[in-house]
């Protein structure tokens, strides 16, 4: 009996000890802030009392904030989030509460924001983060400030949506880059909208019109003519084709209204800014004027070359036959023939150097006479303004000067040390020719050509391709005088 009383007493003591220990532990927990609510009983009714400030006002304030906002404890655990934050992450509060920020945010953003809410952060500067929100990248400026929530120290973290601003800045930057690209292009670049109204045009494009391009219709500002083969009638068709998904490249066209009326190479490509189809068209116009001119020049030269080669071969053949007929020995033939071919070659060289356009008469004279004497010496006296001669006259005159110089060297002024030659270039008159006079003097007494050989024929006939061209050769006692008439049509 006594034994059972002792046992009951012992049990009571143990229970009291247990309860005392619990009470002590509870008080300690309240004192050191491990709990933030207590149960109080009164009039048989229990009630929960939250220790510290009432967080409802804080929550209401956060809820009204436009940026996403959360309250986290020092471990980064979510204590509260407002509607905008829940919207950003498309989550209910029941799924978010108590979670760590690092569990919600994607890796890189989590690390950056983690530094903001670490206990050793002191007024850390806001960080810019971006992450996908329903598949679309959005940008936020995240800042954190320390707060007290009840017994807990934590942080209020706000997420300000910068997406539109970032997009606007990116768009503005892209626009600047696009403008810079357009402006720096050497070719004319024009951007027009779907109604053909020009929205962008670079400097090279402005040069294609006499009017300001931006704001005007493309077809009115730069009307183009297309060759029949392209099947395109006007520039608007090019744009429409490009908007319909068929970009056109390198279409030759002619811009008759542009300053200088230019040939251009036009390309048109759709301007795709979004997935909603092309918003306009980008046209590039390459100025072909110089290229066309070069092509025309090349074709002209090709035809001219063909013509000249044939003529030259015929001339060489003729020189060969005539020289052979007028020379009695092989050596004589070789000397005369070589001299004439070299004379021809000298003029050809000069013409080749001048792109077969025109040659100076003085140059031709120097090239043909210099093998026989110093053209800058006192023995050669040239007067009159120089003439620029087209190839046909240049070749003929080259042969004439060669024959005259050869004759002068053998029999005339250049055969004696005292002889000299005057070359007088007469000024242009109303006559259909320009006269040049070759006058020899102070040479040995002159005899007429003993027989009229091929040299004489060359002098007499080389310029006879025109009724206004030709020569008159006089054997004056003082020296040979050759009056050369160059058709004025061959004088540039």
């Amino acid at each position: 009996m006594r034994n059972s009383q002792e046992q009951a007493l012992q049990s009571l003591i143990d229970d009291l000890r247990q309860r005392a220990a619990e009470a002590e532990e509870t008080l300690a927990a309240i004192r050191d802030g491990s709990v933030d609510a207590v149960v109080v009983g009164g009039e048989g009714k229990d009630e929960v009392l939250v220790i510290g400030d009432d967080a409802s006002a804080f929550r209401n304030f956060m809820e009204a904030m436009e940026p996403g906002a959360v309250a986290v404890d020092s471990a980064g655990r979510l204590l509260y989030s407002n509607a905008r934050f829940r919207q950003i992450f498309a989550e209910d509060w029941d799924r978010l509460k108590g979670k760590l920020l690092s569990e919600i945010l994607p890796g890189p953003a989590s690390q950056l924001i983690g530094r903001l809410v670490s206990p050793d952060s002191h007024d850390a500067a806001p960080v810019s983060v971006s992450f996908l929100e329903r598949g679309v990248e959005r940008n936020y400026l995240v800042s954190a400030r320390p707060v007290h929530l009840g017994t807990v120290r934590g942080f209020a973290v706000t997420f300000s949506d910068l997406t539109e601003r970032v997009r606007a800045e990116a768009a503005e930057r892209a626009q600047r880059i696009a403008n810079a690209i357009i402006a720096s292009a050497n070719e004319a670049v024009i951007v027009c909208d779907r109604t053909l109204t020009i929205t962008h045009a670079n400097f090279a494009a402005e040069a294609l019109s006499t009017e300001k391009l931006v704001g005007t219709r493309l077809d009115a500002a730069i009307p183009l003519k297309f060759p029949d083969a392209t099947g395109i009638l006007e520039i608007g068709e090019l744009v429409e084709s490009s908007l319909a998904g068929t970009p056109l490249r390198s279409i030759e066209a002619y811009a008759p209204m542009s300053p200088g009326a230019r040939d251009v190479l036009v390309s048109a490509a759709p301007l795709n800014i979004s997935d909603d189809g092309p918003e306009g068209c980008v046209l590039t116009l390459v100025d072909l004027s110089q290229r066309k001119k070069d092509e025309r020049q090349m074709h002209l030269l090709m035809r001219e070359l063909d013509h000249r080669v044939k003529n030259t071969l015929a001339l060489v053949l003729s020189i060969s036959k005539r020289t052979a007929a007028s020379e009695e020995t092989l050596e004589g033939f070789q000397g005369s023939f070589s001299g004439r071919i070299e004379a021809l070659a000298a003029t050809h060289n000069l013409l080749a150097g001048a792109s077969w356009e025109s040659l100076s008469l003085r140059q031709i004279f120097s090239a043909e006479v210099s093998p026989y004497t110093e053209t800058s010496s006192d023995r050669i006296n040239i007067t009159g303004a120089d003439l620029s001669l087209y190839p046909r006259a240049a070749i003929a005159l080259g042969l004439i000067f060669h024959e005259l110089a050869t004759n002068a060297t053998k029999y005339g002024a250049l055969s004696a040390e005292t002889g000299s030659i005057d070359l007088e270039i007469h000024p242009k008159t109303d006559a259909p020719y320009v006269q040049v006079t070759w006058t020899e003097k102070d040479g040995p007494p002159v005899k007429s050509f003993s027989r009229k050989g091929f040299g004489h024929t060359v002098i007499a006939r080389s310029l006879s391709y025109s009724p206004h061209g030709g020569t008159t050769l006089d054997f004056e006692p003082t020296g040979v005088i050759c009056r050369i008439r160059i058709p004025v049509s061959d004088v540039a």
Partner: protein
Amino acid sequence: MSTEEASTRKLILYVAGETPKSLAAISNLERICREHLPGKYRIEVIDLKKNPQLAREHKIVAIPTLVRELPIPIRKIIGDLSDEQKVLINLKVE
């Protein structure tokens, strides 16, 4: 009682709505159990803000408090359970 049932911890966590310590306690308990007692625990969360009278059964005064009901004897851990070692010792995991 089978061996499996005997080794299952029945844990009751008393919280007060969404106070910071209550949220921390829920989060810490779930994590500790997930990591150290996989498949060997049952958690019941009782919100005393909604049902304050339920505090009487285990004589709860401070919130949050975790009660290990099984295996007996009953154990109580007061606080937000951020001291993982203390929790594991009381749950007799280590």
